[in-house]
């Protein structure tokens, strides 16, 4: 690498580092004074607001003209005149870049009803599950028969007795606003047990099993 290329590479690395830093700061958000704080300072500052609150990429930009509810007059939000203006600018740029970078989820689902179901038996082309109403927990559990064809191909390997899935009924709204009423089964995905965890469980089971043994005899 010649000297010129090395310098360019160095500059590129620095720019990337700065951009990453700005994105990180944008993610950390603003404290009550409107100043971006690094994580260490944020965690120290007990009064900091919504440190763990969600920040979205669709919020109204600070410079948007906004109107206040409760008879407030039209007003333009003033940017905080703080010593952190440079950081603020960097974070805004990074945030706007993030908005462009982060693909937004446009489709939505208008949920009407949802059940948590547990598979209790599997037959020829169908299976039976106990459905618990998630939106009205006081409703009694119901036994429901499902067609195996209702299960997504990607989830079919998860179909077994004891498997948990979520049965949702509602309107799926496409990114173009098209509404389609339907139901969907999504199986619960949890990490598989590894060998070490299985060995530990077996050992624990043996230990517990000894509690049922009297005088060396079960």
């Amino acid at each position, binding site marked *: 690498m010649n000297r010129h290329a090395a310098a360019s590479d160095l500059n590129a690395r620095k720019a*990337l*580092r700065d951009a*990453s*830093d700005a*994105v*990180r700061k944008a*993610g*950390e958000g603003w404290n009550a004074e409107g100043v971006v704080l690094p*994580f260490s300072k944020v*965690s120290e500052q007990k009064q900091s*607001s*919504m*440190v*763990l*609150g*969600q*920040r*979205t990429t669709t919020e*109204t930009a600070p410079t948007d003209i*906004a*109107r*206040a*509810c*409760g*008879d*407030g*007059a039209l*007003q333009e939000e003033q940017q905080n005149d703080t010593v952190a203006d440079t950081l603020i600018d960097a974070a805004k740029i990074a945030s706007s870049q*993030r908005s462009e*970078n*982060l*693909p*937004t*989820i446009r*489709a*939505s*689902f208008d*949920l009407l009803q*949802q059940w*948590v179901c547990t598979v209790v038996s599997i037959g020829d082309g169908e299976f039976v599950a106990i459905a618990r109403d*998630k939106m009205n927990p006081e409703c009694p559990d119901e036994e429901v028969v499902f067609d195996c064809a209702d299960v*997504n191909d*990607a*989830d079919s390997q998860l179909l077994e007795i004891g498997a948990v899935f*979520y049965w*949702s009924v*509602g309107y799926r709204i496409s990114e173009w606003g098209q509404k389609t009423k339907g139901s*969907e089964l*999504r199986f*619960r*995905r*949890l*990490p*598989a047990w590894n060998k070490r965890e299985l060995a530990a469980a077996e050992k624990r089971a043996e230990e517990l099993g000894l509690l049922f043994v009297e005088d060396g005899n079960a």
Partner: protein
Amino acid sequence: MMKAEIENASVVVLGSFNPAIFQPAWFGAQGLITGEEVTAAKLGMVHPEIAIFSTAWFSLQVTSDRFQIETVTPDSYPLLRDLVTGTFTILSQTPVARMGLNTRRHYRFDAEEKWHAVGHLLAPKEPWAGVLNAPGMRALVMWGQREGTAASKIEVRVESESHGRPDYRIFVATNHDYVLRGEGGTLHICELITAEWDDILAYGRTTAESLLRVGMP
């Protein structure tokens, strides 16, 4: 009861992360998302300092000190809980310090008077007499505690938005802030989110309905 026009839920964890891990392929390899979701995932950026990608039902941003995952499809709320639980079960050695469980609901009002009624209820104008002409509530943040949660602090934020008639909106966001155990922090995440996720979603809905009731039909 008025229905939220948009709603979402998110989980934020502060700690020390390796963003480069958080790629769709990794989640697929762990069995946490499907192969189709891996293939269809939209990559924003994957870099040692930051990872951003989204699928049809969640979006994820991870920096070296912050993990944030959210979904805007309510049918995916239990899936989000499972995904976070699965992720931190696998990454059990990750140092984590705090967690936020968040909800956010946007409501659109059909009448300006109803929208103002909410502002008048939550932020009475009498104390502002002589301070501001035509004062209006732009944003209100309250914090406190409540029974039945291990959260150290709960924050509720109400903000008004209007981009001109007839588009009068208010959003209500809730944030439950948890301080995680020093040892076994990731297990603590799994315990907390398993125990409290449904309650927090219900709290987000009832809080919004309670605060905005004067503006609801």
